[in-house]
């Protein structure tokens, strides 16, 4: 169990670092979406199903949608 959690956390941190590194904002957004998703899974492991639901639907889905819309309306690449 703890191994799975650790792997998830490592993936999550890697996704966060990737969000930091990517010059393409869309990719960075997807990476941060992934952070949120894995966080939602971790919430579930931490016996917080309510929060997991909220994080998955709000943090991962809606926020990402908002990001994508905003990037569409501005510019895609970091200069």
């Amino acid at each position, binding site marked *: 169990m703890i191994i799975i959690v650790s792997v998830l956390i490592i993936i999550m941190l890697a996704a966060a670092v990737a969000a930091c590194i990517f010059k393409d904002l869309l990719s960075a957004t997807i990476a941060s979406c992934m952070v949120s998703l894995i966080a939602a899974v971790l919430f579930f492991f931490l016996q*917080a*199903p*309510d929060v*997991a*639901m*909220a994080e998955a*639907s*709000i943090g991962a*889905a*809606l926020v990402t*949608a*908002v990001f994508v*819309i*905003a990037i*569409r*309306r501005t510019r895609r690449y970091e200069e």
Partner: protein
Amino acid sequence: MKKGVSIILLLILLWGVVAALSEMPFGKAKLEVAGHYTDYGKEDTGAANIVTSVVLGYRGFDTLGEVTVLFLACIGLAVVLSTLKKQGCGARQTPSLILNTGFRFLFPLILLFGTYVFMHGHLSPGGGFQGGAVIASGFVLMYLSVPKIKRLNHFVSTLFESVGGLIFLVIGLIGLKLGSQYFLNNFLPNGEFNTLLSAGIIPVIYIAIGFKVGSELSKIIDVLLEESE
């Protein structure tokens, strides 16, 4: 250079946090207040989901604030984007048939699921916010898959937002006059534990919040998309 300084500062921060964390080991037993909630939450509020009983019972005032924040975000977004000129229609790909068909099939289901989630907030994981978010994600799907943008009905969404919030508040204010005379006091009977019609005011408020949050989150997407297409 700047990155180096940032990293040093953040490491100092980490040091401090580690020092503080040493007093609070992971997974230790609950303390007094939380214990009270799990022990008496059932009796106090009548909700099976203790998180819900905390969110709407013990800490209902936070939730009022939270609802207000979302309402505020909706208004604020509209203010920020209100004076923008309409843009010409950008190149927009026609959504594929699969997406369109899938949307037609899924949209009612998503709405239904969202409604389920917020109606059963006091019994199972979920609640007004999660249910509202699910409904809003249905609308996101709609925006992705319908070729001609269907705007949210301004009138209806405004009504949902305002009335949802007002129901919450009015229930709170009724509590000030009825029963034990406290704001947000649970003046309805608790009913039979673990059934849909239980936990007094909690399901009522969650339904109101569900509609409100659903329409607000959809509106946020709507406003952001508004003139860009």
